[in-house]
């Protein structure tokens, strides 16, 4: 209703949200977009396009995208059971009709437009009310944007629509940056003080063109009445009339220029020159404007809004890209606010097709989303067909004919792309020359205008001065004239009074009344006497005023003459600007195309490299195998050499032993000789002693007998000695032979040893070769894995496989609340509350029922908002970031584990999943319900087995085990991620 008031009172604002029938309008059909998408993406061969996601997971993805929650097991069962033709389209429609879908869009609008800025000047409830109205009435997206940008400010009850500006603190630079990012997908912040240092497409004039739209807007306090009728101050984002201020580049000091308003890709817009005293409208009849200037006649915000239409390609492409990203998890241009030629779209034809469809649908968001969901591309999974040829070690083992067809295709692609790139670089160079030329021409006229604008500033200052004097003179005249009028009217009144007093006399000489009449007449005379002076003063004031007016009009004429000089210059400037804009566009397009070829080359070469690396790994492995064969051979050889060595050694040992034994014999023989010799010596000594003592012997017979006895003994010994000596001589001969034996064995042994050593060395070198090969193989493997990762990223970028993305903080929170039945019980409570206030009658229309359903859901969701805030505080990117980058931190985990809420929700309550599981007796069904209800898929055999085991051993703890299982799935990685 508040929108309607606005429309009635200020109907001239073309951009106010029109009040339409809440029934969705009939929208231009954009059927066929899905097929068009798939046709465009079929440029890639099938082996590079992802598989189809299984049904359940597909439903999960759709549910998250359209409703911000995962599906329940009941929904999943119904989806499985639905086998009729057209099931997918039917389920898209079913989800889009769900009241949750409206909230999903509200959430998307909110995050996209406000980027998680806190509610500062506008409260959450009014902002949500505005967005919910937009979604419920299926307002065209462009209309909403125009409405927010115009941001009517003189009705304090409409402050929600000012939130885009108010909650950015009203700062023109912050707003200019976000106008670029949110409306055009261009973050030109770095082009504020100079042309963007890294992105050639972003010029300082682009930034200041946007800045000029809001440079005259600011936050001011208005007064309004609260519900109790008390006055209160409210901040309003107001706009004043303003000219453009001089700008200079910090890179190019001294060169100043002016910038009027400009949206990216369009020429500058010059607003009509209105004399300073004619720039504002009459104050509107709203009561909020105490102390605030009325709206300017030429509103720049309105001017911006008027350019936010289908013909503005940058605007339309930005929103098409954002809708794509909503469904696909990453933009065709990504990051979403980096549209420029060095960051080309993944597929320009695709972006173009979505943009055309968005326009054709008349900016109907749900219609476009439905078509995106219908495409095959939307339904892709994470695996590539080429992966089916990859073995468990991650190595590609395709049949050679397959591999050949792949490599041929890739080679052709690279060759063609390189040629095309070379051609495009030439085109780009030519386009650049044209662009630079156009820029120079434009700059020349720009500086002409800048000079004239300075002149206009001077003329305007003089005019303002004379206007001030005129206003003063007019005020003086008004005062003089008022004084004169007052006197005249007093004279009249006194005359009338005297007359009436005369009539009122009861007698002609009524003394009191006569005195009164006389007094009145006297007073009247007095006044009459003063009148001429006053009349003269009025005349004088009139003269002064007329003179001031003449001066002012003179200044106006001078001012106008400057304007008249400016107008043709601006016309020429506009022409030059159009040529410059056109040249820029052509240049940027050719640069985009060249960059696309570069990207295609890089992507193709990565696949080629991966195939090459896979082959290299296989070859390396073969080489390793060969070496391992050599290792086996050499091992056998070494074993035999070892044997030979051992044999030779044994032989050597034998002959050495023989020698040793022989030497023992030899030594025995030798000591035997010594013994004989020593005996003989002893005998000789005995005989000599006998001879020496012969004189003493009395009996000569005794002497003779004794000596002969000794001689005999000596003789025996002598014979023995000779024998022993000859024996020894023989043995010495024998030993020489044995020695020769040992020598030859030693030689044989040494030879065997040498052979064995050689063999060992050979073995060591083979081992070293193998190690070398293995480390080369692991380096190759590492590169292969890395390259495969890059290809994976490329494929995601080209929308050939599903994107790895987390649930948004809101999706995670709402999904958990819904999966655990919390949302359901809040809805039930809300229903009861609303029914207390009045139930819907049996004759309620379908429309009323739907409205009630929505009201119930919204009531429940608003009450759960506190939990959502906890999750977004923990999981969301900071304020003002383009998108929610994924990050994981221990405080998130601490909350999920110990915060209490998530674990307690996981337990049985009402008819939630844990309660249902508790009722079940068959562990198999428990497993199925658990996985279908929470993860939208049937468990694998391993998972089934795991659950069954837990169930079997749970005993008395069954309830706890169920609660813990539910919790651990909610806390698991699969739940955190998109399927």
């Amino acid at each position: 209703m508040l929108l309607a008031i606005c429309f009635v009172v200020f109907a001239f604002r073309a951009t106010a949200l029109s009040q339409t029938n809440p029934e969705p309008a009939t929208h231009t059909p954009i059927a066929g977009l899905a097929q068009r998408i798939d046709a465009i993406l079929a440029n890639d061969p099938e082996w590079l396009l992802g598989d189809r996601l299984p049904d359940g997971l597909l439903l999960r993805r759709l549910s998250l995208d359209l409703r911000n929650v995962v599906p329940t097991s009941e929904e999943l069962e119904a989806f499985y059971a639905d086998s009729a033709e057209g099931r997918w389209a039917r389920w898209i429609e079913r989800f889009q009709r769900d009241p949750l879908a409206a909230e999903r869009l509200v959430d998307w609008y909110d995050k996209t437009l406000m980027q998680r800025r806190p509610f500062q000047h506008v409260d959450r409830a009014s902002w949500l009310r505005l967005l919910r109205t937009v979604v419920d009435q299926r307002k065209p997206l462009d209309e909403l944007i125009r409405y927010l940008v115009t941001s009517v400010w003189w009705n304090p009850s409409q402050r929600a629509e000012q939130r885009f500006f108010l909650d950015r603190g009203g700062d023109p630079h912050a707003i200019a940056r976000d106008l670029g990012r949110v409306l055009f997908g261009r973050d030109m912040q770095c082009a504020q003080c100079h042309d963007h240092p890294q992105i050639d497409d972003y010029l300082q004039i682009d930034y200041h063109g946007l800045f000029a739209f809001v440079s005259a807007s600011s936050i001011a306090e208005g007064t309004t009445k609260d519900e109790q009728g008390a006055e209160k101050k409210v901040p309003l984002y107001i706009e004043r009339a303003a000219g453009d201020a001089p700008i200079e580049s910090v890179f190019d000091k001294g060169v100043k220029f002016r910038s009027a308003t400009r949206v990216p890709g369009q020429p500058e817009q010059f607003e009509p020159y209105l004399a300073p005293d004619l720039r504002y409208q009459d104050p509107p009849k709203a009561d909020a404007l105490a102390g605030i200037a009325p709206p300017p006649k030429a509103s720049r915000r309105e001017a911006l809004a008027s350019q936010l239409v289908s013909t503005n390609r940058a605007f339309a492409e930005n929103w098409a890209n954002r809708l794509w990203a909503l469904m696909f998890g990453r933009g065709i241009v990504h990051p979403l606010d980096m549209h420029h030629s060095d960051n080309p779209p993944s597929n320009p034809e695709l972006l173009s097709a979505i943009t055309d469809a968005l326009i054709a649908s008349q900016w109907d968001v749900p219609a476009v989303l439905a078509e995106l969901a219908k495409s095959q591309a939307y339904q892709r999974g994470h695996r590539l067909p080429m992966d089916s040829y990859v073995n468990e070690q991650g190595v590609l083992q395709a049949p050679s004919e397959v591999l050949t067809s792949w490599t041929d295709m890739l080679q052709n692609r690279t060759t063609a792309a390189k040629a095309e790139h070379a051609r495009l670089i030439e085109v780009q160079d030519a386009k650049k020359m044209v662009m630079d030329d156009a820029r120079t021409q434009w700059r020349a006229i720009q500086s002409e205008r800048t000079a004239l604008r300075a002149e206009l500033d001077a003329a305007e200052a003089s005019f303002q001065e004379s206007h001030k004097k005129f206003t003063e003179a007019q005020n003086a005249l008004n005062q003089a004239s008022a004084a004169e009028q007052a006197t005249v009217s007093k004279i009249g009144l006194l005359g009338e009074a005297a007359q009436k007093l005369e009539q009122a006399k009861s007698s002609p000489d009524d003394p009191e009344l006569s005195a009164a009449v006389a007094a009145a007449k006297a007073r009247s005379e007095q006044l009459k006497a003063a009148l001429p002076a006053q009349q003269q003063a009025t005349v004088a004031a009139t003269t002064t005023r007329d003179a001031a007016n003449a001066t002012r009009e003179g200044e106006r004429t001078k001012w106008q003459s400057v304007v008249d000089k400016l107008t043709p210059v601006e016309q020429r400037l506009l022409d030059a600007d159009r040529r410059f804009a056109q040249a820029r566009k052509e240049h940027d397009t050719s640069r985009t195309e060249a960059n696309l070829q570069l990207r295609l080359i890089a992507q193709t070469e990565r696949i080629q490299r991966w195939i090459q690396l896979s082959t290299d790994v296989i070859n390396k492995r073969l080489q390793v195998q060969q070496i391992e064969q050599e290792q086996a051979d050499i091992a056998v050889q070494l074993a035999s050499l070892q044997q030979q060595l051992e044999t030779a050694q044994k032989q050597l040992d034998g002959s050495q032993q023989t020698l040793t034994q022989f030497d023992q014999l030899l030594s025995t023989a030798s000591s035997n000789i010594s013994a004989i010799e020593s005996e003989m010596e002893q005998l000789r000594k005995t005989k000599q002693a006998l001879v020496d003592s012969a004189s003493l012997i009395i009996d000569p017979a005794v002497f003779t007998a004794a000596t002969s006895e000794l001689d005999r003994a000596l003789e025996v010994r002598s014979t023995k000695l000779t024998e022993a000596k000859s024996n020894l001589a023989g043995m010495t001969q024998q030993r020489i032979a044995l020695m020769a034996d040992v020598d030859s064995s030693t030689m044989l042994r040494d030879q065997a040893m040498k052979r064995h050593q050689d063999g060992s060395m050979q073995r060591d070198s083979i081992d070293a070769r193998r190690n070398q090969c293995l480390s080369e193989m692991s380096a190759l493997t590492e590169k292969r894995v890395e390259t495969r990762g890059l290809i994976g990223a490329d494929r995601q970028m080209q929308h050939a496989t599903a994107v790895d993305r987390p649930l948004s903080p809101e999706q995670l929170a709402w999904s958990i609340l819904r999966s655990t039945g919390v949302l359901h019980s809040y809805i039930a409570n809300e229903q009861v509350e609303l029914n207390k206030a009045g139930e819907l009658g049996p004759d309620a229309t379908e429309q009323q029922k739907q409205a009630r359903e929505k009201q119930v859901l919204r009531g429940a969701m608003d009450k759960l908002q506190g939990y959502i805030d906890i999750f977004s505080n923990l999981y969301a990117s900071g304020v003002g970031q383009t998108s929610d980058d994924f990050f994981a931190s221990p405080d998130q985990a601490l909350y999920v584990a110990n915060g209490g809420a998530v674990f307690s929700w996981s337990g049985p309550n009402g008819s939630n999943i844990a309660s249902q599981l508790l009722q079940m007796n068959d562990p198999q069904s428990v497993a199925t319900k658990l996985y279908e209800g929470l993860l939208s898929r049937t468990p694998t055999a391993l998972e089934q087995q795991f659950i069954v085991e837990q169930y079997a051993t749970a005993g008395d703890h069954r309830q706890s085990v169920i609660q813990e299982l539910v919790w651990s799935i909610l806390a698991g990685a699969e739940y955190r991620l998109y399927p």
Partner: protein
Amino acid sequence: MRYANYACGSVEHRLSRRRFLQQASTAAAAGSAVVGGLGALTSGAAAKELGRNDMRVVVFNMHGGLSQLESWDPKPGAKTGGPFRAIPTSVPGIHISELLPKTAQQMHHLCLLRGVNTAEDDHGKGAYMMLTGRRQTPSAEYPQIGAVAAKMLHDDNSGLPGHIVVTPGGGGGRGNEAAYLGPKFSSIHLGGDKPPQHSVKPESFNEDAERRRHEFRRRINQEFLSQRRSAITDAYTHSFEQALRLMERRDVFDVSKEPERDQERYGKHELGRQCLMARRLLENGVSFVQVTHANYDTHNDNFNFHIEQVGEFDMAFSTFVADLFERGLLERTLVVVMSEFGRTPHINLYYGRDHWSKAWSIVMAGAKVARGAAFGQTNADGTEVIDGQVDHGQIFHTYLQAVGVDSTQSLIVDGREVPMADPAAEPIWKVLA
């Protein structure tokens, strides 16, 4: 093998791709750039690239604006000097205020910067500049030193958060101090001596149930990860293990575990406990701790306030520095004493000093900072810097250089190159040893 065998393109790989594209398709890929933005996913290898070392930072935020004249740059006898004397320190030739007798004995560890000129007299803006090294602009947010330190220095596996702000009040929420580095590097606020929120298991849980549910979680993850492992899943599952480790190490946050004697040495006041907590956290591997000493905004009765405040600070701070040195931590820890600005040399009618950012002082110590030095000089009345003038941009560069981080490098954030510190400023090489 260094690379995890991810089934699909991991974010890490995407980063490499971006980098590749940048080099391939833009002419100017100038400067040395390190990968950032998706900090949670920085792997060990990338950490090496970031030059992670065993350095730490501790900041004493003298909230409200400590008077340089009653601390680091006294002007006894000057008409602006106030009633206090200057005393000699452990470094011959350097004198500081008599309000800092204990700190004077630690002067040989400290480096005074007496020529700070930040030209910003607003509390909020001044604090922003000192913590981020940039002037605040409405269209861009910059990360605070704590977030940068956490990103560049912190070891994710320690189980402890890398960026901790200890405040008297505390409060569990995350601030936006990390800006584009992402909330992972935002501070965890500790209220006085309380551990982080939710760091204890629910009371209703017995050890068995606790162990069981995490075992379930791991088992259930395992099956999924065999199909869909990526940098995202690694980071996510890791965060739960980190949380468990943090719970195990919850004692780290319990100052009462420190010996009674130490509690006395630091002073049995808020700041003393904060400093002891800081020592404990730094010893346990936390990269950044900020302690806050409030109440320096002495527009009235400047001198009495400073006697009381600086006295408290002197005891806690001197003990802290001496302990860090004794424990061998000082050479690995940058200590900074800062405010949002200093106080006017002029003494106002209420015996107060007002906001003054043209000529004031900060202190740095430890890590690669020169020891026992005084850099920069103000004139006789302390109204102007006459030598060694530095501003917040240079100071911020110097923080980073002091802990071995190249402050001239850029981070690549969401495809954009962002200089880590103001590219228009340079480190103060003269105070770096």
